[in-house]
């Protein structure tokens, strides 16, 4: 793509999300979502083949439906409150419709079916933008309307997402689908604590974005999209395999890595609000996630997977540069001792 055009389109995506996050008028928020959607379609379709077209179409259809539902919720809100300012949602029906719309945008169960298919159809870099940047805008709206969200619906969606994200990823060997199911599960964790303490949602989002960014950077570096091709990295750059191990264990939520921090804080917040069975169930279902991360580490870092001889020659070729890898690795694995710093968020 012409670099100038690509920059313009990317800036439109960024601008769309910025408009969503910074507006106080509901119509502007909807406009921001539409800008974001329309501009990201060419980015998803950077490589022009039927697979990408199918993925972009699916993405467009689901997101457009969600935007329409959002518009309906905005109108019902306008009808009941008489103003367009985003404060809280004044009508329970509008709140339910808005929550469903935003869940569809985020990829929460039962609206999660598009996430694996879309992520699989597009390139790794586009998948990265899809799973990290695109989650910011809906999450910011959920954060702002969090006092008026129906707790039952949100918690059901959250718990089901964690379950689906864990269970669905068990049968996958394609790395992009694994990351998609991981995204569904993490979105579940984030929305579970939204009503109790939205700050923790933001913390989880931050750490999730860092870990996903790291994982995608490592995948892009070894140009691998399947488990099999990832298992050849020990031939090329053994250091990358260690980094993959650390980041995957962090995504699984194992102490002492920083992926444990959001889970711990969320369990603490939920327990403080006297729900005990829910965080226990959530924590145990996160073990499903850990299982397929472990399987990935087994084939990649912890064994020297059998490979043909021409795999061993790959180290002779120039390696791709990974942007900002050391800070990302440090932030996605070593942040746990900084947990007391969360008190500055009060």
């Amino acid at each position, binding site marked *: 793509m012409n670099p100038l055009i690509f920059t313009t389109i990317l800036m439109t995506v960024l601008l769309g999300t910025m408009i969503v996050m910074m507006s106080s008028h509901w119509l502007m928020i909807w406009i921001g979502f539409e800008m974001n959607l329309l501009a990201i379609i060419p980015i998803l379709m950077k490589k022009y083949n039927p697979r990408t077209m199918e993925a972009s179409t699916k993405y467009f259809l689901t997101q457009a439906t969600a935007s329409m539902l959002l518009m309906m919720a905005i109108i019902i809100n306008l009808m009941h409150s008489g103003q367009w300012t985003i404060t809280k949602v004044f009508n329970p029906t509008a709140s339910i419709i808005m929550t469903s719309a935003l869940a569809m945008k985020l990829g929460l169960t039962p609206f999660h079916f598009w996430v694996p298919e879309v992520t699989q159809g597009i390139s790794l870099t586009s998948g990265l933008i899809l799973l990290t940047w695109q989650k910011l805008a809906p999450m910011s709206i959920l954060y702002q309307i969090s006092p008026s969200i129906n707790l039952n619906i949100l918690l059901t969606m959250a718990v089901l997402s964690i379950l689906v994200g864990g269970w669905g990823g068990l049968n996958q060997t394609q790395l992009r689908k694994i990351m998609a199911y991981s995204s569904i599960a993490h979105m579940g964790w984030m929305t579970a604590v939204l009503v109790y303490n939205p700050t923790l949602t933001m913390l989880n989002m931050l750490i999730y974005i860092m870990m996903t960014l790291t994982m995608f950077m490592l995948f892009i570096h070894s140009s691998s999209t399947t488990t099999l091709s990832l298992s050849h990295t020990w031939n090329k750059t053994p250091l990358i395999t260690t980094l993959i191990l650390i980041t995957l264990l962090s995504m699984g939520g194992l102490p*002492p890595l920083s992926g444990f921090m959001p889970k*711990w804080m969320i*369990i603490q917040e939920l327990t*403080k609000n006297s729900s005990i069975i829910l965080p*226990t169930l959530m*924590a145990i279902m996160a*073990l499903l996630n850990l299982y397929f991360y472990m399987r990935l580490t087994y084939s990649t870092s*912890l*064994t020297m997977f059998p490979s043909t001889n021409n795999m061993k020659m790959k180290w002779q070729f120039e390696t791709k540069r990974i942007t900002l890898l050391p800070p990302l690795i440090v932030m996605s694995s070593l942040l*746990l001792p900084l947990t007391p710093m969360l008190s500055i968020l009060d």
Partner: protein
Amino acid sequence: MLKIIIPTIMLMPLTWLSKKNMIWINTTTYSLLISLISLSLLNQPSNNSLNFSLMFFSDPLSAPLLVLTTWLLPLMLMASQHHLSKEPLIRKKLYITMLTMLQTFLIMTFTATELISFYILFEATLVPTLIIITRWGNQTERLNAGLYFLFYTLMGSLPLLVALISIQNLTGSLNFLLIQYWNQALPDSWSNIFLWLACMMAFMVKMPLYGLHLWLPKAHVEAPIAGSMVLAAILLKLGGYGMLRITTMLNPQTSFMAYPFLMLSLWGMIMTSSICLRQTDLKSLIAYSSVSHMALVIVAVLIQTPWSYMGATALMIAHGLTSSMLFCLANSNYERTHSRTMILARGLQTLLPLMAAWWLLASLTNLALPPSINLIGELFVVMSSFSWSNITIILMGANITITALYSLYMLITTQRGKYTHHINNIKPSFTRENALMALHMTPLLLLSLNPKIILGFTY
């Protein structure tokens, strides 16, 4: 406590910056020096604990375990030298780094005051152990073993996290120094029964309790020697230590909640001892014997009398040293014949007489011969369980007999008789191996002269 933790952390740069011919010398020497520092903690005044800061403390229960942990690192390094000799330098350094990281987490776990910090470090010990088992184990079954190990422990300990946080909400603080003075009885309700279960299951899985012990034979057998040593000697004791700490907060539910676990342990110790009599795999035999000894510790902790606590503590230390020594002996066989089958290496007394002396001493301490500290531990547990209920003496007596049977079976099969003709060309014992066995045995024998340092906080 930082005077132990920071040198242990600094062992990692030491490994990475050492030259090729100095890595083993450097790390073994400095870890021995660190273990000498930790010996000073055994000087425990009065009944209170030694409080170093708000975050670290050591009391008569954690001090012997800490000394055992720091003592074991140089032994693990000595034991690993042979099987790592063919690996490239970076992999040797990675292995030593994993062991050192595990050591740091273990030291911090045993001295943590805040229970959530204890939990985080308890879970943190899983990661280096998993890497050691799956990366450096020898057979394909090690992958399965790693998964079993990780998931059994995590399933048990995630409810513990929720339980600790809810206790913190109820009582306001989880700092152990505070809790030991502010002990309230837990009200009797269904949710407190689940709280009891959530608190205890993590440690039951770690011990392991008889019904949840499936991960242990897999993990111990598939791990390399240092992994087996640290698993048997320390990681199992983490469960015992955790149980001893947390049962102080869980009264009075323990009086009736403990029954199923007591039954499982009492029956389980007989079952696992009997299985030892039918094992062909030497490491598997030692692994099941660990389950059996730990079942005694579970019985002791759940009975909650002063004598049983003394017995539990003594048994943990004694079993740590004995089990680790048995694994080193089994490894010396494995390095020569590359097989763990017992009958493949028979009659070793003729070929390696000094090693046979170490086999004899290890087997004798395993069957709790007087006056070793194993006997002190087992005797205290048997006596306190007799006072709890007279009938347990039958099971305990049967267990002691069967333990003697399988220990002697192991000794006689490997040492006595005519040697098999295919092992007449094995290498003689290295000085390193003899030093390893001596360093295991000497603390064990010396402690029988002054056992009160390992008798824990109810002495």
